[in-house]
C-alpha cells in the first residue's frame, strides 16, 4: 500500500481543533474554580458555563490498548475531549453535568484511580530508567510505582498542608524535576569510571570529554592517546560517560539512591527553591526499593504533622531551620550534606544563631 505524502515543518496540529465547545466559548474568560473531590473540580466561566474535570492517575507509560480505552470513555462521557497534565495525569473534560457521576462510576469500575487535585500528592515527574535510557543507574518507573502505592492515600483522599511534588531521576542528568521538588530521588554512582583506552581515540573528542567534567578531574593521557581521571577529584557524576561511550561507570552493587527535599517551583509566598540533599545513599533495591519508599513516607508524615497550612515542605523547613528538620526526622546528618562544590559558600552558616537541635 502506497505511503501518503510526507510533509515537513508543519509543527503540531493547532490545539483549537481539540478543545471542547465549552472551552472554546469561555476561552480565557474563566471566573473561578472549585475542587469538589481530590479527583474532581469544576471551572466556572464568566458566562456561568461550567467545565467539570475528572483527573485520573496514569503510569505515563501507556499502551495503545489503554489509550484506546481512555478514548472510548472520553467519547462516551466527554464528547471525545480529554487532555493530559504537565505531570502526566489524564483529565476527562466533562461539559454536561449529567455525565459526571456516570463517568466516575465507570472509571472506578474499570479500576482507574481518580485524584491528585489540591493539597496532596499527585503524579511523579520521572524519567526513562532501564525502560529506555542508556544512562540509567536505576529504573524510574519502578521507583514511582513503589512510591505511589505507598503514598496512594494522599493522591486519592488524604490531604496535606499543601501540595507535595515528587520526582524521580535515574541519573544526575536529572531529566525532569528533581532539582526543584518537595521530595525527590536521584540515582547516583559511587565509583570512579573506568576507561577503555582502545576505543577512546576513535569514539571521543578529547576537549569535549575534558570539558564535561564538573570538577576538572579529567586530564589528557598522551601516552595512551586517551584521558586519565584523578580519583580524588571525581565525584562520579557520569558526565564523561555521557559524552564518551568507552568510559563506563555503572556498578550494580555500588549504584545507589539519594534523597533530596525542600524544592519548589512556583513563587507563591516564597521564591522557587532547589531541593537539598538529606539522605546521601540508599542501596538500589529493585523491584520495590523498600527503604527509599519508607524514607519518603516518613518525611511526608513528619511534614504533615508539623507544617502550617499552605506551607510547602521547603517553606516549613526554612521556618524551623534545617537543624530542626534533621532532629524531627531523625535522619543522620552526613558529610555529604555539607556542600563542597563550587557554590558551597552560600550554603554554610555564617552566624552563631541556630537551634541546638
Amino acid at each position, binding site marked *: 500500500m502506497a*505511503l*501518503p505524502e510526507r510533509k*515537513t*515543518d*508543519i*509543527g*503540531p*496540529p*493547532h*490545539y483549537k481543533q481539540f478543545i471542547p465547545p465549552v472551552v472554546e466559548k469561555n476561552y*480565557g474568560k*474563566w471566573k473561578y*474554580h472549585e475542587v469538589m473531590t481530590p479527583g474532581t473540580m469544576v*471551572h466556572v466561566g464568566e458566562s456561568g458555563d461550567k467545565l467539570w*474535570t475528572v483527573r485520573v492517575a496514569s*503510569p505515563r*507509560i501507556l499502551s*495503545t490498548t489503554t*489509550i484506546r480505552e481512555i478514548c472510548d470513555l472520553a467519547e462516551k462521557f466527554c464528547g471525545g*475531549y*480529554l*487532555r*493530559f*497534565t*504537565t505531570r*502526566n495525569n489524564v483529565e476527562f473534560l466533562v461539559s454536561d453535568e449529567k455525565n459526571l457521576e456516570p463517568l466516575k462510576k465507570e472509571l472506578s469500575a474499570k479500576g482507574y*484511580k481518580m485524584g491528585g487535585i489540591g493539597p496532596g500528592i499527585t503524579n511523579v515527574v520521572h*524519567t526513562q530508567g532501564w*525502560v*529506555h*535510557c*542508556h544512562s540509567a543507574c*536505576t529504573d524510574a518507573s519502578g521507583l*514511582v510505582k513503589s512510591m505511589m*502505592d505507598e503514598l496512594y492515600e494522599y493522591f*486519592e483522599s488524604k490531604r496535606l498542608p499543601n501540595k507535595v511534588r515528587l520526582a524521580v531521576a535515574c541519573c544526575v*542528568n*536529572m531529566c*525532569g524535576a528533581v532539582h*526543584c521538588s518537595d521530595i525527590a530521588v536521584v540515582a547516583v554512582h559511587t565509583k570512579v569510571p573506568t576507561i577503555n583506552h582502545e576505543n577512546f581515540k576513535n569514539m571521543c573528542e578529547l576537549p*569535549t570529554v575534558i*570539558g*564535561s*567534567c*564538573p570538577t576538572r578531574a579529567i586530564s589528557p593521557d598522551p601516552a595512551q592517546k586517551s584521558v586519565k581521571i584523578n580519583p580524588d577529584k571525581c565525584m562520579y557524576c557520569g558526565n564523561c560517560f*555521557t559524552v564518551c561511550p568507552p568510559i563506563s561507570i555503572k556498578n*550494580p552493587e555500588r549504584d545507589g539512591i539519594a534523597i533530596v527535599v525542600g524544592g519548589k*517551583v*512556583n*513563587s*507563591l*509566598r516564597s521564591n*522557587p527553591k*532547589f531541593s537539598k540533599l538529606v539522605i546521601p545513599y540508599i542501596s*538500589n533495591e*529493585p*523491584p520495590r526499593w523498600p527503604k527509599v519508599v519508607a524514607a519518603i513516607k516518613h518525611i511526608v508524615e513528619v511534614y504533615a504533622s508539623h507544617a502550617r497550612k*499552605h506551607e510547602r515542605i521547603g517553606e516549613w523547613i526554612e521556618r524551623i531551620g534545617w537543624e530542626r528538620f534533621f532532629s524531627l526526622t531523625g535522619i543522620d546528618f552526613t558529610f555529604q550534606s555539607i556542600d563542597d*562544590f*563550587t557554590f558551597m559558600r552560600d550554603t554554610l552558616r555564617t552566624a552563631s544563631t541556630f537551634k541546638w537541635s
Partner: protein
Amino acid sequence: MKKYNTPLIDELEKGPWPSFVTEMKKAAKNNEMANDAVGHLEKCYETKLGYWKHGGIVGVLGYGGGIIGRYSELGEEFPGVAHFHTVRLNQPSGFFYTSKALKEICDIWDKYGSGLTNMHGSTGDLVLLGTKTDALEALFAEYSSRGWDLGGSGSDLRTPSCCVGPGRCEWTNYDTLDLCNNLTQEFQDELHRPMFSYKFKIKAAGCACDCVASIARSDLSIIGTWKGDIQIDQDEVKKYASKGMDIMSEIVSMCPTQCMSYDGKELKIENSECSRCMHCITRMTKALRPSGERGATLCIGSKAPIVVGSLLSWVIVPFIKLEPPYTELKDLIRKMWDWWDDNAKPRERIGEVIEMKGMRSFLEAIGVPPQPQQIREPRKDPFMFYTEEDIAAYKAKEAEEKKTGVYKF
C-alpha cells in the same frame, strides 16, 4: 511469541497505583518489540544493570532532531529491542486531544512501533517508545501527512510547552496555548535542525503558579503577570471567612510582602507593595482578581545540575506584553540565540554562558537595560568592570551637577 518469566517486575503489578508493567504486558500481547522489552526489563531488574547503548544518530530525512536512537547490547537475546528508538511527536498546546486524533496516533504506532508510549515526556512531547530504523521514514510520512510533526532533540530548540492557561484557568495573564503554538510554528527550522551549541527549552506559564515548571526547567521561562491592582470582592471575602478560613493566618500573615490587612470584616491590600506572588489569589479565587495591564516576566537560563549545578531562570525582562504576532518576543529570542551562538562552547547552555560572560554582555546584546528587578541583591565585591563610556558618563553627570548644584546619584 517468546513468553518471558518475569517474577521481579511482576511485583510491580501489585498495589493501587496503575502499573507500567501491566501496560508493557498489554502491549506485549500482540507486539514482538514490546514483548522483548518486557523480558529485557526483567533482566535489568535481575542484574541491576541497564543494557542500552549510547544513542546513535538516527532520524528522518532533512531533520536532525525528533528521534532518539536506542540500541540494546543484548540484541541477540532480545531481537525486538535490538533497535528501540524513541519518536518524539510534538504535542498540541496544553496536551488537548480528541479521541479521534489519539486513536489515529495509536493505529499508526501499532503499525510501526512497539505500541508503547509516554504520555508525555518531561519536555512535553508525546513520546513513542521503541521502533526500528527502517520504519522511521514510513512512520514519519504517515504522521506528517495527518498533521503531526516531530519534536526536538539534540542541540536544537526543544519542543516548547505551556500550562493549560486560557483553556481552563481563571488566572492566566496571557494566551499560553496560542503563544506556545505560535512560537513552535515560528521556529520550526530551529526545532528540527540542530544548529545550537546545546539544547534550548521554552516553557510558558500563565501566572506565578508556574504549572509547567518553566522557571526550573526551561532556558527561556515565560511567566504571566499583571500591572494593576488586585480587585477585592468583600462579600466573597466574608463567605470564605464564614466557611471557616482563618484569613489572618492563612492569607494576611503568609503574604510575603506583608502588604495585606484584615480587620475581621474588610480585607485591604497595599497594591504598590504587592509582589504578585499569587498566594492570596489562589486561596480566595472568588474574592480576589488581578486587574490592569497583562503580560509576562521573561527569565533566562534554568537547567539541570550538569555541569556546574542546577540553575533557576534569572529575570531579564520584568514585563512584556504578549499579543499576536509576538514580534517583540520573537526578536528578543533571535537576539538571545545570536549572542549565545557567538559566545558558547559546545554543550554550553545559555545560562552557563551568561555565567561565563556576565549578564551585562547578554543584556546589551538583546538591548535590555539594567533594572533592579533583575537582581535579588547587588554585587557584594568591589571587582567591577567599567567601560570608557561608563566613566565618561559618570564624569559628564558630575559636570552637570557642578552646574546645577544638585546631585543625581
